[in-house]
């Protein structure tokens, strides 16, 4: 109980500091300070997380995550990956959560997923925005892991967090490829996450395919299929 209070105080103090700094509006400084804050937040997150796993701190991770996503709006240009922020949705969520006074009313957005993957020491996190004309998903995420155990742990943790935030009536998410030790997949509706080992990642090169689409090298290497010279199209065959 004491630990809970202390952690909450820590998190709220960090949030207040960060909000003050934002009001100062000094972009260069804030980026550096934010990185430091990020680190401290991450530390808090990990410590909070451990307590959550023991069942002592259910609300802590989500409070801190909310702060993280707030700060994320100011950091659009610094992100190396291609991301689009749904700021209106986050504002709505904040309003909802403030009125309901529950940590569970957050939506499982891309920010939540990327922050939890970073927390889990994911190697080479890559987020790709799927173009609109491909009606598959909004975002494709490819993550590497250190070992098959690491990948499995990351996938299970992602599912756990998703279950926590899932609302009544939303479709479930299951791990695909549970018995494959080098490639696991989770389909969260709007986002699809692939957990692979580095060797598997090199072999399939999903990032290249999904960013280059038709200009992908492996696709170009596939020989063009031509009809054989003796091919005779007989209409009778198809009408039977």
């Amino acid at each position: 109980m004491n630990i809970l209070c202390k952690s909450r105080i820590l998190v709220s103090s960090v949030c207040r500091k960060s909000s003050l700094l934002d009001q100062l509006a000094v972009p260069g400084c804030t980026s550096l300070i934010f990185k430091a804050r990020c680190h401290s937040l991450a530390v808090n997150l990990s410590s909070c997380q451990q307590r959550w796993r023991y069942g002592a701190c259910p609300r802590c991770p989500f409070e801190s995550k909310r702060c993280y996503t707030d700060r994320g709006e100011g950091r659009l240009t610094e992100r190396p990956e291609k991301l689009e922020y749904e700021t209106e949705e986050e504002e709505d969520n904040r309003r909802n959560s403030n009125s309901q006074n529950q940590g569970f009313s957050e939506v499982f957005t891309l920010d939540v997923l990327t922050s939890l993957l970073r927390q889990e020491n994911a190697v080479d996190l890559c987020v790709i925005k799927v173009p609109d004309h491909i009606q598959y998903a909004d975002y494709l995420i490819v993550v590497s892991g250190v070992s098959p155990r690491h990948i499995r742990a990351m996938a299970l943790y992602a599912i756990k967090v998703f279950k926590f935030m899932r609302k009544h009536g939303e479709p479930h998410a299951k791990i695909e490829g549970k018995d494959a030790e080098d490639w696991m997949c989770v389909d969260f509706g709007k986002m699809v996450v692939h957990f692979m080992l580095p060797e598997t990642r090199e072999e399939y090169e999903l990032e290249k395919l999904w960013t280059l689409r038709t200009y992908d090298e492996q696709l170009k290497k596939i020989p063009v299929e031509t009809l054989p010279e003796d091919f005779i199209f007989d209409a009778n065959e198809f009408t039977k």
Partner: protein
Amino acid sequence: MTFLRLLQQLPVVLVQTSSTILQRNFSVSVATPAIQKMTRVRVVDNSSLGNTPHHRPPRVIHVYTKNGIGKVGDKVLLAIKGQKKKALIVGHKMPGDRMTPRFDSNNVVLIEDNGNPTGTRIKVPIPTSLRQMEGDYSKVLAIANTFV
């Protein structure tokens, strides 16, 4: 009926006599009730096993469903180049549900025992209805280039 059989045998004969003929990559036949044992299928990924020419087209020897009929999304066992390989059906000639695509050939993607696809790219359009189905299809959808 006999004429049909002759016509099916004729291309094979022609392939043997002419030396400049390219190997046929797919079989032409009438539409069968979806995919069952002994159907010749077309492997659509870029795996070496599916694309190297062989004197016999890959055939289905077992369908992993309750009845022996395979539709889109079902796993089958193929006999390719003298070896057994599991595969996933991604399209068949038989018309299926309304608003699902019908293909001109019975397409199949080779799969390992653990569910990983053997090839790394699929050029042929893949139906997006695979996403809603129960099963592990995200990997096949991830290596696909076009969707239908």
